[in-house]
């Protein structure tokens, strides 16, 4: 299928168009286009393929939870054409060798572009800068650096990292969590944690780091990205920083847009995640910030874990939940079904803006001459979420919830990775 046309798809700006794809590239956008193969997309929405700035693929080291192959298959089913793989693997992605290995595993799998994120510090230990330049100049061409899972809590080290990556246009993505304020923390600190007797993770532990780091970014004239922002106070700090002209971008996860700490009352660690699920008030503030642009992007923080890591008491359980295959539905719920925003905004938060933050030049736009990285959505479907996904793990918090929208096709570099809702096997995408 060297050349094909997507017929009568609705673009994110609302116009209906045909999209002609030849040799992996978008050849033409217009009306009455034709090719040997025509795919009817009437009633469907064509968006630039989604870009996840925050994915845990777990390989190398934790293949019982996920591999690059299974994680990217899950991503393709979610409409993604690129994912950024977090560095907390074993070995940690803190050298050129490891990031190149992850990059090549992604190419071998072939479902999405896998862009490795490099660790900021050696072994994620927060003591010494990793070889950021070597990772940037490697074949993996790393642009995003993060110790995610841990905070770069030392202010001097954070300052140096922010400054240093300017040499090659990199960005630090900070997991904002003051470690001393969250010793032993299990869930959001508040009335619910008091009642349940679970150690609290206070909002201030996130907000104080964000406040510090936007000031550091301003001081050294660097840009900074805030991972999984989760509180109302964090929104206010980022809003203030942007109004001051600080070069900050922020992400929110689908689960922080939908779920609250009330779910911890079940003591079911499927709802245990870091940062923790917050209150209804926080959820409302995050939604509003996503609509008004204070929060720039949705990133999944897809965090697979084996069954036994969740089939236990709360304190013993691992933090994290999967989310690649439900992210677009949560985005649709928050932006479209709410009546508060539009498909252009959804395309921005799930594709063009994350691509811009990470300098992923082949993603984020449906335009003539660009690589064909496209997600086709059926917005009218209501689907009940099943537990099992293409991910190797089952820690899915959305089971049995009704969510709007479904990914019908995903096109990565001009080839269908997902067609009519079904994952294509390797031979078909190769």
């Amino acid at each position, binding site marked *: 299928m060297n050349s094909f046309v997507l017929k009568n798809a609705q673009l994110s700006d609302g116009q209906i168009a045909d999209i002609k794809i030849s040799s992996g590239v978008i050849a033409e956008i217009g009306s009455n286009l034709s090719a040997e193969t025509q795919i009817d997309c009437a009633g469907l929405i064509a968006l630039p393929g989604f870009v996840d700035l925050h994915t845990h693929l777990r390989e190398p080291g934790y293949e019982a939870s996920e591999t690059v192959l299974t994680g990217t298959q899950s991503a393709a089913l979610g409409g993604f054409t690129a994912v950024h793989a977090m560095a907390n693997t074993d070995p940690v992605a803190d050298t050129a060798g490891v990031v190149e290995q992850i990059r090549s595993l992604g190419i071998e799998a072939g479902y999405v572009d896998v862009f490795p994120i490099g660790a900021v510090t050696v072994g994620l230990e927060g003591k010494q800068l990793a070889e950021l330049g070597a990772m940037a100049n490697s074949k993996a061409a790393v642009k995003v650096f993060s110790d995610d899972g841990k905070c770069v809590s030392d202010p001097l080290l954070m300052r140096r990292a922010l400054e240093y990556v300017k040499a090659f246009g990199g960005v630090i993505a900070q997991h904002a969590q003051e470690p001393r304020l969250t010793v032993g923390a299990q869930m959001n600190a508040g009335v619910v944690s008091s009642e349940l*007797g679970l150690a609290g993770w206070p909002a201030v532990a996130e907000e104080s780091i964000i406040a510090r780091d936007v000031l550091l970014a301003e001081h050294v004239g660097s840009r900074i990205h805030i991972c999984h922002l989760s509180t109302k106070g964090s929104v206010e700090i980022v809003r203030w920083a942007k109004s001051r002209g600080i070069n900050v971008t922020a992400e929110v996860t689908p689960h922080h847009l939908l779920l609250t700490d009330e779910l911890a009352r079940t*003591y079911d660690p499927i709802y245990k995640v870091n940062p923790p699920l917050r209150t209804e008030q926080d959820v409302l503030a995050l939604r509003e910030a996503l609509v008004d642009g204070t929060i720039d992007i949705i990133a999944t923080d897809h965090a697979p874990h084996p069954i036994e890591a969740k*089939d*236990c008491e*709360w*304190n*013993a359980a691992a933090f994290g939940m999967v989310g690649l295959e439900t992210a677009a539905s949560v985005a649709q719920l928050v932006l479209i079904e709410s009546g508060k925003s539009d498909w252009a905004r959804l395309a921005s938060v799930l594709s063009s803006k994350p691509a811009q933050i990470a300098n992923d030049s082949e993603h984020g736009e449906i335009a003539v001459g660009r690589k064909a990285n496209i997600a086709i959505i059926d917005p009218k479907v209501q689907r009940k979420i099943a537990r099992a996904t293409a991910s190797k793990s089952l820690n899915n918090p959305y089971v049995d919830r009704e969510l709007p929208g479904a990914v019908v096709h995903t096109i990565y570099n001009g080839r269908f990775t997902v067609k009519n809702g079904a994952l294509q096997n390797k031979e078909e995408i190769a």
Partner: protein
Amino acid sequence: MKHLLSAADLTVDEIVAILDLSDEMALVNQRENRKLPTLRNKTVVNLFFEDSTRTRISFEIAAKRLSADLINFSAKGSSVSKGESLKDTVQTLAASGVDAFVVRHSASGAPFNLAHRGWIDTPIINAGDGTHEHPTQALLDAMTIRERIFGLGNTKGKTLNGIRVMIVGDIAHSRVARSNFHLLTTLGAEVHLVAPPTLMPGGFGIHKHYDFDDALQSVKPDVVMMLRVQLERMSASFFPSESEYHRTWGLTSERFYRLDEKTSIMHPGPMNRGLEISSIAADSAQSTILQQVANGINVRMAVLYSLISGEKVVSE
């Protein structure tokens, strides 16, 4: 009622029924033959994942007085990384035929998990989970308060309407405080909490005090319940020193002498004499500490009986 997980789950009728049954058990315990045949051929497992002597022995005596077979199982810690998981442990034991588990665990919610995750289908009694709840402690405290307020033999059917109870100390980390707050409030008592701000949790009503002396003077409590202070709280900077804690939030001899002589003094044990409570108060006639221990056996007999025999405590 299949499980006893949280004092917050209990209605006033259920609590009064358990307390009335506990009073009957107290009479049994005063007889020469203190053993009832009620739970013959039933197996109760004391599943203790955290050190405990007092509660474990109290449940053990209660089960044996009801003629149940009692097995003690102790394990330190439980997580996937440290040996057998909680799920595997209870499934293994349950497969051997168990009629009730009495569970003590350092993780808040562990008994709730055993009751509701579908791992086993056996009655669960929470004997203290992390910093969450310890419902039989609240029941024995309520039984003791009823006896002190109304007098032995005059407690049947009584609630604690209008009784003022002051709980003092590390409320934030106390499962005893949580269970007592819920249970005593349901019984109609007015529960006041006194703690340093660092150890006062969010929620839990409106009667909160940082000044013990002002609180004693303004509230005039019928009951003062002192909580055990863990010394590790001091190293974590919740308060500066033992002597400052004792002076500010301890039941010192001076505070004890200022109390009304009808005010009961309670402590769940084990006590740190000279820290949260002075010996003068602990050993006074107003102290209910040993009565609480005795009532522990009475309420645990009542709870085991209600959950295992299948007979309803509350008629519907």
